[in-house]
């Protein structure tokens, strides 16, 4: 399929349109709420709660024999929410820490879910095939009703975030301050957690229980690298989520046999990795380049200094010194490379091969660099030195 045909098919094909829209909404909602989860250091809450949703899906199915999205949402939501509640109780009232609480709920609930699914498979037969998609996600099974359900619940979540914006912002950054101002911190905590649960449950059908957690973490991790402002971060995170949701779902729906969850997750993770490496300011590549430049400059200054000192200590200022001597004086610098670089700038020369001496312009540069270093290390310019 060529690219034009592919793009038109997104707008004309029923399946693709459903898939793209459903996944975009799902990704947007989980991205937005994931930003809050990340700031509250609850990124892994998503992992635990998505696994905890599984027994709910199975129980609702056993009770009602229904496979409609809305019914299963309800079961998934209640069960994931109970899991979240259990984590909160365990962390609040015992000495068990959050990570153990999360891991425990994750494994125990999921184990229960698997046992129930196997029971459904054995006693209800082929019907179970429909529930299978909740493990790794099947985008192609999305119908219009599912998209409408996702859109309604997603809209509710986003509207609540907008209404409680100020309160959520406060409990993300300073819970104690929020409590002293008289905000109902416990209620807000439960509300925000419930919304995160809701976002997770929305994506289960597409991304699957196992990988849904990544949709809470990856878009937020990407967005965090681009801004320090909460509003911008939430919007960016929602955008990244929506984009990776629809891109991933479309890719997996067009290729046969691909599980949707992993493709969506890889798309979102690609955004995150790219942002970690290349985002302005926080990008690790810029950091690395800056550090390399500084190291080079420092090595150049040190080598010039040493050569200058040596020339001062000899009756003949042009007396050459072997590379090994210089390396021994400056053991922690890459002396040979630095010498080559300085030579190309005409700051040092080799009267005989492997024997180095400083040139006139090298001496001038030494004083200049030395003065620069003196000024740049003065306190009022300290932010320059940091890198």
């Amino acid at each position, binding site marked *: 399929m060529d690219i034009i045909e592919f793009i038109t098919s997104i707008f004309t094909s029923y399946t693709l349109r459903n898939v793209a829209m459903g996944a975009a909404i799902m990704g947007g909602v989980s991205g937005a709420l994931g930003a809050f989860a990340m700031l509250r250091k609850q990124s892994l809450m998503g992992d635990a709660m998505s696994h905890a949703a599984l027994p709910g899906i199975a129980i609702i199915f056993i009770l009602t024999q229904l496979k409609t999205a809305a019914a299963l949402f309800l079961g998934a939501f209640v069960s994931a929410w109970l899991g979240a509640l259990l984590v909160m109780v365990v962390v609040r009232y015992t000495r068990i820490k959050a990570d153990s609480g999360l*891991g425990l709920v994750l494994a125990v609930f999921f184990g*229960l879910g698997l046992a129930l699914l196997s029971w459904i498979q054995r006693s209800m037969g082929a019907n179970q095939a429909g529930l299978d998609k909740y493990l790794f996600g099947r985008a192609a099974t999305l119908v219009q009703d599912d998209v409408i359900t996702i859109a309604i619940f997603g809209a509710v979540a986003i509207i609540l975030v907008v209404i409680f914006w100020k309160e959520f912002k406060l409990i993300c950054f300073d819970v104690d301050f929020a409590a002293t101002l008289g905000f109902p911190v416990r209620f807000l905590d439960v509300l925000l957690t419930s919304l995160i649960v809701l976002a997770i449950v929305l994506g289960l059908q597409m991304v699957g229980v196992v*990988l849904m957690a990544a949709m809470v973490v990856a878009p937020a991790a990407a967005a*965090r690298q681009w801004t320090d402002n909460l509003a911008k971060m939430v919007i960016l995170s929602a955008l990244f989520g929506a984009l990776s949701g629809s891109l991933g779902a479309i890719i997996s729906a067009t290729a046969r046999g691909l*599980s949707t969850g992993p493709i969506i997750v*890889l798309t979102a993770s690609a955004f995150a990795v790219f942002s970690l490496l290349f985002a302005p300011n926080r990008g*690790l590549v810029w950091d690395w380049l800056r550090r390399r430049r500084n190291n080079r400059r420092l090595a150049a200054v040190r080598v010039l200094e040493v050569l200058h000192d040596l020339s001062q200590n000899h009756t003949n200022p042009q007396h050459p010194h072997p590379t090994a001597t210089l390396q021994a004086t400056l053991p922690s610098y890459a002396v040979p490379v630095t010498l080559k670089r300085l030579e190309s700038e005409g700051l040092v020369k080799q009267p005989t091969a492997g024997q180095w001496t400083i040139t006139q312009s090298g001496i001038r540069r030494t004083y200049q660099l030395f003065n620069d270093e003196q000024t740049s290390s003065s306190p009022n310019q300290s932010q320059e030195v940091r890198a």
Partner: protein
Amino acid sequence: MSSNALIIQGVGIVVAVACALPGVFLVLRRAAMVSDAISHSVLFGIVVGVMAFELEVGSPFLILMAALSGLLTVWLVELVIKSGRLANDAAIGLIFPILFSLAIVIINVFARNTHIDEHVVLLGELVFAPINRVRIFGASIPEGFVVMGSILIVNLVLLLLFYKELKITTFDPSLAAALGFSPTLIYYGLMTMVSITAVGAFDHVGAILAIALMIAPASTAYLLTNNLKWMIILSAFFGSISAVSGYWVSNWLDVNTSGTIAAMTGVYFLLALVFAPEHGLLARFIEATQRRRRFAVEMLVFHLFNHENTPEQANESSVTHFMEVLNWQPEKITQTTNQAVQTGLVHRKNGQLELTGKGRQLAETVMAR
């Protein structure tokens, strides 16, 4: 009991004990979710081993590859954390889904017809334990026993050799570093143990049960004891009884055994959560109530003592007066005064309360505090 039932439970117990040993330290180090990350990304190593190096499922090299991919996860997570761009939990949540997704995509694309299947990974089926057998010294032994038994022995030997190091780096990393132990080295050693255990468990019981058996029994034990040795023994015990009871429940309901055992670890945890003598919810609730009551009695005694032999004594000692002064509800006043009278701290006289010698003594100790 058939020999199959014995084998399944036996393998279950071996897995449970093998998981409990590293599990205790994961729980104590707040690194429990790392086991989740490792158990998932182990699949990546297996898939790469099978696809790229054409290793047989069950080959020791495959176990090595898988364990290495577990360590790769730990290393990548540490790398992201060290860069300072993401917090600990976000780093874990970012890294392991990437490896797991890659593994599943590879399976989807290249291995649709082979016997690797993403479901096997998570579900695992302990019921197959008696079927897969290997011959050792002419005897036919279930493979699960051999693999998990070896891993259990390795874990046990490592634990005995490095017990002191593990203990000190867990409870006081800075002291350990000051004494010359490398916390990083011990950390990676522990993670190697987790990876190998996860890989073995993965093949025989599924990733989810491995996570459950590492975290839940250790958490249960943590609620019951303050002693590290006892915590290890108790978590091995709770893991084992989860395996045995889980097997019987799954047998009875005819459902997935691994899932049921995982659920059973949760049942024992819930029991400990509610009923543990010192750290359980019930004990904490009772203790909080008793403390509140004791405090109320002390307040009462102190109040009476403060106004003893003063002109206001008559007024200050009347029961109705406490309502305003101490801001107590009528039930609380009745309950507190009754308790104070019963324990012989005060006695009633014409609708007023008067301190006894014992009550005066208590008030003095309260004041001296």
